């Protein structure tokens, strides 16, 4: 029964991983852009939510209404003002610039908010749960996080397959030069994509802040899991991101149970091993596109 519980809790954790990975997946899928500041952006989103919740005395869930547009605008501006100048066949400029951005965000947050660890308080629902059996209880917050991840990815999938914006995204992703010839303003489109990426990572940051406390320097640790989820699921694939996140979450849950049952050594290691196994056997990820 404890093994089943480990899988169930792992799936719940996977929701958060998937939410984190979404923005990374968008940026890579649309413009082959590796964003090393992704984890720091999530923490930035959580801190913006701290300001919004205390300034406007809103519930953190409601604060998303304010935080998401702010981060969307920030992403749009950041792509137009900075990231667009780094996009080229060489991935190094974007890696260096986003690495630097991560350092800037961490230190700006330290200056603004001090090093105190913060949390987003949503009241008693934080510790409430649905009891399935004696051994299995699902917390409301992890469940809502998973639902949010599925909703965000469903919305993204619908946008990509049903709207003209989505078609433009796919066109630019497949062949930017030809898309430009067809009259698509790829620079502007990149900015929209980065805006969406920032918006999703802000959602992830807020859910992280509700789930656990966070500090200005917690971003890089989140980046690692987001990367692994994206690579496991498949670079640039929407459903791959969800699958990657869930698999990584299950690996974490089982890893924790291994630890308790057999002693030290597994934990997140199992997640890293799944990541390595996928990278070694199917570098494009489980649901990745072949050219990715």
């Amino acid at each position, binding site marked *: 029964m*404890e093994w089943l*519980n*480990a899988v169930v*809790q*792992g799936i719940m*954790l996977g929701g*958060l991983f998937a939410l984190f990975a979404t923005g990374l997946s968008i940026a890579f899928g649309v413009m082959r852009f590796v964003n090393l500041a992704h984890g720091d952006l999530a923490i930035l989103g959580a801190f913006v939510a701290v300001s919004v919740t205390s300034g406007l005395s809103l519930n953190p869930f409601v604060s998303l209404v304010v935080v998401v547009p702010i981060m969307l605008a920030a992403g749009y501006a950041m792509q137009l003002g900075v990231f667009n100048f780094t996009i080229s066949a060489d991935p190094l400029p974007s890696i260096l610039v986003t690495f630097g951005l991560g350092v800037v965000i961490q*230190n700006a947050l*330290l200056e603004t908010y*001090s*090093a*105190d*660890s*913060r*949390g987003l308080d949503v009241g008693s629902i*934080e*510790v*409430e*749960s649905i*009891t399935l059996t004696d*051994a299995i*209880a*699902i*917390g*409301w*917050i*992890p469940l809502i996080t998973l639902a949010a991840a599925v909703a965000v990815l469903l919305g993204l999938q619908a946008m990509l397959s049903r709207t003209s914006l989505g078609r433009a995204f796919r066109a630019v992703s497949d062949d930017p030069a030809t898309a430009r010839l067809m009259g698509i303003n790829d620079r502007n489109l990149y900015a929209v994509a980065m805006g969406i990426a920032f918006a999703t990572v802000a959602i992830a940051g807020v859910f992280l802040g509700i*789930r*656990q*406390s*966070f*500090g200005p*320097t*917690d971003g890089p*640790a989140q980046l690692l*899991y987001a990367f692994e989820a994206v690579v496991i699921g498949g670079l640039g694939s929407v459903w791959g991101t969800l699958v990657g996140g869930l698999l990584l*979450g299950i690996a*974490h*849950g089982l*890893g*924790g*149970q291994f*630890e*308790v*049952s057999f*002693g*030290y050594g597994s*934990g*997140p*290691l199992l997640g890293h091993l799944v990541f390595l196994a996928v990278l070694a056997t199917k570098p494009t990820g489980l649901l990745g596109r072949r050219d990715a």
Partner: protein
Amino acid sequence: MTESNKRTTSRRQFLGSAAAVGLGGGLLAACGDDEEAAPTTTAAPATTAAPATTAAPATTAAPSVASDIPPAKVGFVTPRTGPLADLGQTDDFVLAQIRSLYGDRIEIVDKDTETDVTRAGEVTNELIAEGAHLILCGGTPDTTIPVAATCDLAEVPCLSNLAPWQPHYINIKGGPPGPEPASVWNHHFFWGLEHMTQVYLDLWAQADVEPIIGALWGGDPDGQAFGDPEVGQPPAFIAAGYTIIDDGRFDLGTQDFSAQIQSFKDNNVQIVTGVLPPPVFATFQAQALQQGFNPPVMTVAKGLLFSSAVGSYPQGAGLSSEIWWTSRFPTTSSLTGETAGDLAEAYIADTGRNWEQPLGYGHALWEVAIDSLRRAGTTEKTALNEAIGATDLDTQVGRVNFNAGPVPQLSTQPLIGGQWVEGERFPLELFIAVNGFLPDHPVDGPLQLIG
């Protein structure tokens, strides 16, 4: 209030209090002309100010004249940013106070380690290259070890605190405790794991629960040291009659504790202990509560030290911890004559935040440094190092004497224990339950069970 305004205020206060030392109510008098600080400082109770008059005899008033100290350059290395920044959060206040009192004699150069072991050594080298006569440092072994080791190589006197003595000592010396000092040039004052284990046992002895401990000792150096079945905490816990449920070392990066929680539930764990950084503890507690596990006692090291961190947990009230310093410590500053309460009130008035435990140790570091400089009468390194070694001084954190510790050049300071409770003035305040190592500290009552 801007940052610079805050500093000015504190300088004015402390210049005032320095001048008025021996009059006891120095702080009150000094703040009278400051509208912004006035409302908070008037709250400083006359009862805490009064003992200062009696406890600070004329001899302590005299030393706070700065002119009998040789002009010196002193480096100050602490983590001000990064994950350990909570330990350095009171430094701005402490340094502003010392600069206002001794700025004309002592040039203070403060450096931030950015919570980076390598950088801690680098900035120490920079300070030494700039001609620092003495290096002060504090903030976990990750700060004190590289700084003290660097000072040892360069043969520069170094004073450290805010790190349990065993990891500090063992890593610098490279061997188990013995009759030799860890390093010729380092003197350290703090408490050790033996004090912490005793405080925990004293706390739990007050709780009427079944003696079953669930241990959360992670795979980091602290967790491995605490959980070591031979030299860690388990032997003392077992000897005291406790059963330990220890599911092994785990990675601190883990975001899922369901396996441990299930195991604790299955084994009827009543007391949860361990050593966890704040974010990890927060994750554990939220999941434990979600899964219906809320043990009556949770006594965890490292993660429960700061009201700033505990306030962010799902359920901060009731958590218990070791406590190094409080505003009610029965101590007086050798520099200003302030009691612990005066110092804490000055900090609250200056920052608008509740005091935190590093305040006492940050202040005490300078007490020992300035006392040693005065007795040495010179900044010559051997004479200064000998003067530090001869320290026998009552400070904010108790008597510091480097010849009375379990190993040479170490002074162990008193450690007490207690828990966070909902407060009247601040959301969370410390409730003291255990004072075995410091019987003069008031006790609020026995440990209260959670829930």
